[in-house]
């Protein structure tokens, strides 16, 4: 509830190094995660979410969990880990944490792809 009423890291990063957007129109959830990478670590992370309370809370939680982590560590954050950090989610809301994990992973993949293209 705290992560819903007082979400951390809300917003956008205009010059982000990686951006990941995932959406699930069936439940009406859409999430974008922006990351800034310095020396292989997530230096800054922000999110924007359209969705239910659980979707907003999981977005906020995953940005807190990923901040400062190396890309490898961040890639290993699973939906179960996010749900666990929040103190559990009802089964019907698990797809929200799934979405958050997917958005983060997609942002990292986006960063790696951009880096690859520059070389």
């Amino acid at each position, binding site marked *: *509830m705290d992560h*819903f*009423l*007082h*979400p951390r890291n*809300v917003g956008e990063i205009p010059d982000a190094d990686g951006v990941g*957007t995932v959406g699930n*129109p*069936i*439940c*009406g*959830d*859409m*999430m*974008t995660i922006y990351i800034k990478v310095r020396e292989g670590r997530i230096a800054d992370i922000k999110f*924007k*979410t*359209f*969705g*239910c*309370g*659980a*979707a*907003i809370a999981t977005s906020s939680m995953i940005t807190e969990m990923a901040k400062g982590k190396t890309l490898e560590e961040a890639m290993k954050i699973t939906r179960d880990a996010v749900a666990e950090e929040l103190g559990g989610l009802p089964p*019907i*809301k698990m797809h929200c944490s799934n979405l958050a994990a997917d958005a983060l992973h997609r942002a990292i993949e986006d960063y790696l792809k951009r880096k690859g293209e520059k070389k």
Partner: protein
Amino acid sequence: MRSKEGRKLKVYLDYGAAAPTDPRVLEAMMPYFTEHFGNPSSVHSLSHKAREAIAEARESVASLIGAEEPEEIVFTSGATESNNLALKGVAIRNRERGNRIVTTVIEHISILNVCKYLTRQGFEVVYVPVDQYGVVDVGRLEEAVDERTILVSVMYANGEIGTIEPIAEIGEIARERGVPLHVDATAAAGKVPIDVVREKIDLLTLSSNDLYGPKGVGALYIRKGVKISPIIHGGGQERGLRSGSENVPGIVGMGKAAELAREEMEAEAERLTRLRDRLISGILERVPESYLNGHPTQRLPNNANLRFSYVEGEALLLSLDSLGVQASSGSACTSKTLEPSHVLLAIGLKHEEAHGSVLFTLGRDTDERGIDYVVRVMPRVVRRLRAMSPLTPKELLR
């Protein structure tokens, strides 16, 4: 989120989901739990009191809807059972006459799921569409009623978007074709006047809790002469149409609730309409890109269903709840399924629009202070969520 207005108010605006039992109703029920506990079917004198009480309740419910005979009222366990009895009972009894049932796309789930079941049993169900306000397309309904049709079922008013249907017009068509009309009046009874004779209604579903009576009781009006089979068999109570020893305290409560509804409906409807319009216009004026779902005037006095672009309904509800405001949502995430409301989709809303809707249902304890509080906090609640949403256009946040 802390309230800038200082003290947080408690504002309950979910009467459509559950209403408190009126203390006068509770008082009328109490003796039937203890002193007059007798079974109305018994022979001894203790049963008399229970029998009389049920007869009185039957009269009171009949009189709320203008039924000619109290015996046309059958007590059930609630609106879901009444809807099941009406549809299955008429379908099974009239199987030889035909197999078509005509209903609408915006019916309650306890109609739609019975229709699905009957389809599996070989009946053909036609779902008539509605317009952008949720008003049933009477022309399409008329076309759908053919010689094989054994029942038409249309709700009196939609509990979600508040739209009141042209029942008298539909009753005229059904009566002319000799097809019984069932009307689910769960959301409408006690809010707007209903006259089963004038509106040519053959079967009508009522719920006690929506009249501020106890939960777990309802009724089905069955006009004399309508052919119907029971769906619950046993000791033959309720003229054989609903077996099982009567829920005497519940029935007494529903009777009292119906009596109070009849006496107080007119003044209460006027009061609620005023508060409803104050809520609707207050929010629409203060929140950009907010819209009313359902009909602007032809709507239940206690219903305000509003839509907010770029945000999701459940997040709105949780935010409102943190400020003491309890409302409901037609949206996916509050219900047991993830599907958006079939009613909102039926009036032509896109999925994301349907998801961004909030339903306020007003009731006896709703007052101006509560409504003004909601109107005050709503812009802030919506703005906060819009600031978080990737869908919100930048201009809107300036």
